């Protein structure tokens, strides 16, 4: 698959995930500690954090930050 096909497919996937209302990065950052703790606790986050989950699917930067925070919390030190 050439670059333009791959790129277009990814773009269409993102269009498919697009909602009228989305959180911006700041709104996600404000609750990222709560969300990450909820993930760690293994609770059901789908309802309370639906907009956060949706943002993380669309924003690689916030996803990186979430994953880094999760790695810290998962490690006992």
């Amino acid at each position, binding site marked *: 698959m050439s670059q333009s096909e791959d*790129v277009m497919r990814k*773009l269409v996937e993102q269009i498919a995930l697009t909602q009228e209302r989305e959180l911006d990065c700041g709104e996600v950052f404000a609750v990222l*500690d709560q969300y*990450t703790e909820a993930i760690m606790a293994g609770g059901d986050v789908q309802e309370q954090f639906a907009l956060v989950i949706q943002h993380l699917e669309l924003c690689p930067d916030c996803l990186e930050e979430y994953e*880094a925070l999760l790695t810290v919390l998962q490690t006992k030190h």
Partner: protein
Amino acid sequence: MLAIGKYRGKETQKVYSRVNMATAERTNEQWVSELAEPGEAQEIALADLRAIIMRGLPYSLSKYLNPSDPQFESLSEEVAQDTLLRVLDSLQSFEGRSKFTTWVHKIAVRIALTELRRKRWRDVSLDELTEDSPGEGPRGILAAHEPGPDVVAEQSDMIEHLQRVISEELTDKQREALIATRIQGMPLDEVARRMDTNRNALYKLLHDARKRLKARLEEEGLSTEEVLAAFEVG
């Protein structure tokens, strides 16, 4: 620099017992009250918090920077320092909805990754990422599409159609932001700085761009499932 270790040698016994107490878990309320006012309790709390941040960084940065990398130590020192300052500045905004140390690690992660991204993309300009350079192959999404031999006509038509939709629906700014972030993979903070905006505003710009594209496809009666299906062929 914050005066960490200032009390070493002075009232050693007292400090020792305080440190022991401090290494036991503080509650959120203890952290906030000890950090709120300048003084000995704040110094000790800052020193402990600094140690907590420094212990977390090798894990939060593990994907990006090896602790044996010569950059690691100076970056960690810088991040810990900036994090402590940010924590003191924004103590009022801590709502206690997570553990205090989780909140602090969150701030440290943001500062550390922002700094790493800045270093990594320092020498890249937005222009070189987003201009279509004829003769160098399709760098941008709007470059002429030259299908490979395995690409069937349906897919090729779809790509051309999407390229047309993008050029008709999006502003120059939206197109530039979309190409830099989503196609070239430049971090939002880095694109935002180059476009004289901020990360939140840039996310909104990209969100608006996606909404426009989505609306246009809907107007055309084209579902994203159908479009994606076209890519599955071949």
